């Protein structure tokens, strides 16, 4: 009995660990069930997969979903949504699901303190959302967990209005890179609606961190009016904004853009100059070549590197400028020209892309 506390401590730990092992086991089986039973790792077994192939009707799939755990069901619905189930079948399935009490219970999880319940709610809504769910979607779009935000953004594929799109646009600057990439993809599908909203927000007096996100969104949406405003920001006082402008302008063609990039090549911030140099590789006129050759004498290595690659990618005109730089009085320009001339064409393409 003297050392009973040793047995108590060790025993308590074993009970705790045994309980958690049971939780892990349940979780593994549940995941396997989702993969094999609902989504179906094999075509013949998955009820959701069989819906896609027309072997099962919506009522049978709903019955299978009813018997699964809420998390598994939510994942199966996401999968069905991503696999682009046919509109008629999707409508039939949605109609049936909206009548199911467990679906509403899952959606009510949007208010839970537990993130995985909010995730299940967002995932479920991404398949069944209607206008009456807009306040829930708004709430989930502002969630602190990135996975919930992504799933909530997917709800916009089901139902979207101005307020929801504004929430997405305004949240772009604070979203993680994965969420932002997903949100930009969704915004692109609503380019006609989102473009004017973005246009309103791309103003020089907007906070720089927001402006940075808006500029990338404008490039993603390929909105011509927004891009004109973006080009006008090339003299913005904040360097991060100018970096973003130089980065997105490189994918745009046109004389105005070309002139802006040439002026950005003389920007006081080296990051802006480097991005501008990258953007100029597609324009092989004498003035651009001259400016890029001058950039080979820049004080910053990255600017010289980008200018060298841009000249190499340009073709004979650029290559000639590089060869000329080999006799330049600036040692660093000579070194960079030698480095770039020594690269194979594949290496130039690889390095220019990264």
């Amino acid at each position, binding site marked *: 009995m003297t050392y009973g506390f040793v047995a108590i401590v060790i025993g308590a730990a074993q009970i705790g660990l045994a309980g958690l*092992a049971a939780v892990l086991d349940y979780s593994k089986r549940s995941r396997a069930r989702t993969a094999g039973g609902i989504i179906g790792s094999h075509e013949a077994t998955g009820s959701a997969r069989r819906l896609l192939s027309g072997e099962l009707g919506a009522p049978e799939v709903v019955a299978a979903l009813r018997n699964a755990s809420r998390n598994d069901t939510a994942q199966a619905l996401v999968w069905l949504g991503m696999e682009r189930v046919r509109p008629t079948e999707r409508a039939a399935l949605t109609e049936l699901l909206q009548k199911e009490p467990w679906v509403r219970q899952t959606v009510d999880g949007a208010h839970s303190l537990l993130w995985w319940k909010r995730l299940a709610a967002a995932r479920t809504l991404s398949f069944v959302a209607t206008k009456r769910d807009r306040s829930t979607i708004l709430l989930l779009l502002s969630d602190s967990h990135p996975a919930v935000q992504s799933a909530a953004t997917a709800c916009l594929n089901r139902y979207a209005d101005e307020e929801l799109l504004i929430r997405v646009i305004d949240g772009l600057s604070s979203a993680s890179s994965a969420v932002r990439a997903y949100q930009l993809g969704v915004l692109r599908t609503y380019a006609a609606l989102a473009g004017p909203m973005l246009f309103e927000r791309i103003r020089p007096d907007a906070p720089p961190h927001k402006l940075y996100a808006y500029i990338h969104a404008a490039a993603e949406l390929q909105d011509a009016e927004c891009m004109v405003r973006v080009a006008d920001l090339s003299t913005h006082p904040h360097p991060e904004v100018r970096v973003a402008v130089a980065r997105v302008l490189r994918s745009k063609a046109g004389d105005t853009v070309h002139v802006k990039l040439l002026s950005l090549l003389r920007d006081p911030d080296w990051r802006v100059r480097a991005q501008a140099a990258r953007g100029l590789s597609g324009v092989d006129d004498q003035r651009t070549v001259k400016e890029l050759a001058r950039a080979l004498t820049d004080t910053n290595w990255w600017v010289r590197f980008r200018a060298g690659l841009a000249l190499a990618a340009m073709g004979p005109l650029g290559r000639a400028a590089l060869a000329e730089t080999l006799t330049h009085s600036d040692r660093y320009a000579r070194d960079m020209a030698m480095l770039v001339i020594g690269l194979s064409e594949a290496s130039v393409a690889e390095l220019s892309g990264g």
Partner: protein
Amino acid sequence: MTIANALLVSMTTIMIFFLVINSFHAILLMYSVPELWSHWQLADDEYFHALVGSEALPPISVVAALRDAPNDAVAFALMLLALEYPRFEVILVVNGGAGTALSDLVSALDLYEVPAAFTINLKTEPVRAYYRSRLHPRLLCLDKPSGSIGDALNAAINAARYPHAVSAAPNVVFEPDALLRLSRPFLLDRSVACVGGILRPANGAHLEDGQIVPGQIRGWTVGCQTIEYLRNFMFQRLGWNRIASNIVFPGNTVLFKREHVFGVGGFDATDETPGLDLGVRLHKYLTDIGVNARMPVIPDPVAWSVVPEDLASIGRARQRWLRGLRRALGRNAGMFANPEYGTFGVIAVPYFWLGIIIAPIVELLGYIGLVVGLATGVLGSSFAWAYLASVIGYGILLSVWTVVFQAVSFQRAGQPGDVLRLLAFAVIESLGYRQILALYRTTAQFADR
């Protein structure tokens, strides 16, 4: 106080010490469960899969130093170049003494020399030449006649052009999607500074459909190391994620930001465990500059490595690691129990001192004390049983639960026979193997190299 009383008090203290340390290990094991559960919730996320191949994924430089002439430098380079990731490059440093590695690479991958025009952010021993490949534009090779592994990695980081880097030791085989897995935490959380991947012993494993499948473990030393890896480097480190004070070692299978490495002055070229040293310095540096950064470890095995099979090699590796840890913590002694460094300072650093550096000495002293106490009649059999239960029995049970957790968590846990074999090793590991390593670790305390 008589000698007998002193012995009894000391032995009771040691028993309580191990009861506390093992209970802390049990807590870490328990914490790994919610961590695994969260990971699964996100790993199956279809929206994340939609991003694979997109610009959202950060471009990565894979850096590696070939110092000890790996069997096949070309195969190693090709393995890295074949990783599944949209934008990455491979920087390979052929360090002094790497045999025919450079000539092999030149002829097999059609390398050509390029001028040395790179930014030098970290001071290193001179680089003799830089090579690019006509067959693989993503590859850059550095020929460096001398210097340590840390120095070679610094040279590779200087030559890298992407903001994120992954270090690869030459004896590892990466999973094809290792970079995708490692980059996931960066995509989801802005406060992530580094991500550690799990390294698993590859002895007995084989390739199946491009994936490494663990095979039957042959040899008790490999079996015991597998248990060690599972317990210490996988489940316990997942538990550390929850305490938010994980330590990752950027020397191997760790994705980190180059700017942070520049911030701390790079790897210590004089250190025999440069990754470990850098891991501790990164914690200090980020806290000192006011960055509240996380360094999570992901549960997926991202790389496999053949572990040594003889005890002397294992012992030397553990000695090196322990000396490295002691040096790294000693150089940053101000972090010890310092709340300014958060849970890392208050929980992790004291644990590393007590549970890793001091524990082997205490353990060996405890065995001597137990024998002396029993021989002189100072300690009774009930004490001896309680003592052995706290020090050895508790450890065995934790190792057994580690195997159980692995078996019920992962699809690639192996056949029931493999699990039973691992359970046997979980018992064997605490009955002999651990004590031999405790001896190696203790001797490491009294030698610098």
